[in-house]
């Protein structure tokens, strides 16, 4: 068993994490939902920290809480889509889908418990170099080179896609340029 302090800390972080996830679902204001998600990411980062992986924890904060959620918030504010209306909740098949996915998740948890034979014992204390930035980097570029490269190619494709989509097609661009020249 880990020491009592760690268990209490874990319980608090876990409660906040689950609470913020529930808050995200029930909140009727998109801004508050986004902020609950930020809180959730932060608590998950703290969980990583408790597990002895500071690099992953800080990467989680930087990427998810710091970059992605700021963009979410930005878009919500830009579109003025803070308030959820009744019609926006009435997507066809939403309830059915939620029930099906919930059942799948419950089945997964049950299967996990059966296969692993109950809740796993606490793993041994990881070495101090575990989750060290240098160790993570070496592992990423030696053991997992191929998945890493594939991910980067996918990201590049997404980036190029975003630029192409915002530029519009050739005719559109020519028309815009002509309009600009006319004005000048």
């Amino acid at each position, binding site marked *: 068993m880990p020491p009592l302090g760690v268990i209490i800390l874990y319980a608090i972080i876990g409660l906040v994490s689950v609470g913020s996830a529930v808050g995200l679902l029930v909140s009727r204001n998109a801004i508050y939902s986004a902020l609950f998600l930020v809180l959730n990411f*932060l608590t998950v980062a703290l969980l990583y920290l408790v597990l002895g992986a500071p690099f992953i924890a800080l990467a989680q904060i930087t990427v998810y809480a*710091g970059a992605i959620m700021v963009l979410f918030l930005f878009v919500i504010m830009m579109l003025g889509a803070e308030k959820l209306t009744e019609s926006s909740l009435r997507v066809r098949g939403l309830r059915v889908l939620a029930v099906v996915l919930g059942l799948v998740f419950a089945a997964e948890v049950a299967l996990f418990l059966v296969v692993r034979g109950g809740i796993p014992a606490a793993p041994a204390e990881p070495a101090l170099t575990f989750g060290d930035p240098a160790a993570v980097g070496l592992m990423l570029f030696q053991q997992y080179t191929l998945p890493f490269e594939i991910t980067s190619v996918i990201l590049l494709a997404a980036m190029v896609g975003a630029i192409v989509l915002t530029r519009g097609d050739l005719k559109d661009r020519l028309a815009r340029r002509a309009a600009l020249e006319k004005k000048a």
Partner: protein
Amino acid sequence: MDAGMIWEWIIKSIFLILFMTGGFAYVTLLERRVLARMQVRIGPNRVGKFGLLQPIADAVKLIFKEELIPAGADKLMFIVAPVITVIPALIITGVIPWGTSINLFGREIALSIANVNVGVLYIMAVTSISVYGITLAGWSSNNKYAMFGGLRSTAQMISYELALGLSLVGPILLAGSMNVMDIVQAQKTLPFALLQPAGFIVYFMATLAEINRAPFDMPEAEQELTAGYHTEYSSMKFALFFMAEYIKMIAVAMIGSTMFLGGFQGPFVDQLPWLGPVYLFGKVIVWLFVDIWIRATLPRIRYDKLMALGWKVMYPIALLNVFITGILVVLTTKR
């Protein structure tokens, strides 16, 4: 871990927070005095000698102002936003070492709070979440000027964060570590500003944008947006935004001095460890003076130019700098 260690940490943390808030008070005075001199005025010199008690007078004045919450504002967010803005500014310098260690009351005390192996990443993480306060303040005020100020600063801060992060990669590569202490030790003979001039300049400009200082103080461009995101704020809540801004100014000066100017390194610091904080303090003061000097010199640049500068000039330069530094480090490392 003994109880003494915990007390040491608590005392050091409280000292850091007090130092940053005290620093905030006197940076406002420094800024007003220096700006006044540069504009051939005298500046505040009535309260105390050289106006040294002026910050206290300002604080008392702000405390007695009326607290306003606009009708139609989102009350909770309106109150929480200034707090969210201050906290990252206060905690970001937790990983900056002030020196090696000194002997105090028969106890070896390390002059750093957190000597962690992901120090630079911690700085980046805290910077990245410091956008929220300003964004939320703009949104919750229910005011169009505030909203535009909030949106502008969000766009500006996430754009310049990229260049900022990449400019810090140079020192990491040269020192071969993300530990801030290692980075300082690696600058014993030569500060990284000389090896990384491009990275240093990009860092300096990106931080000016990141802390919304002139010439990049778009979010609060008075002529266009009254006061930007803090238009509706008054009294202590306004003071908190002000505080966050100046504390961030000190923090980026401290981080920049540590990453590029050798931090606490200086002549005779090995023999006399207490010189470390003195050197760091001196570098920070010079940095702050340059910030103020720039504010007095340069006009504000246009918003679209600002974004173009961030994405089309600084980001590619920072990226190229990382690329070239990486190649040079690989070529010059002895195996």
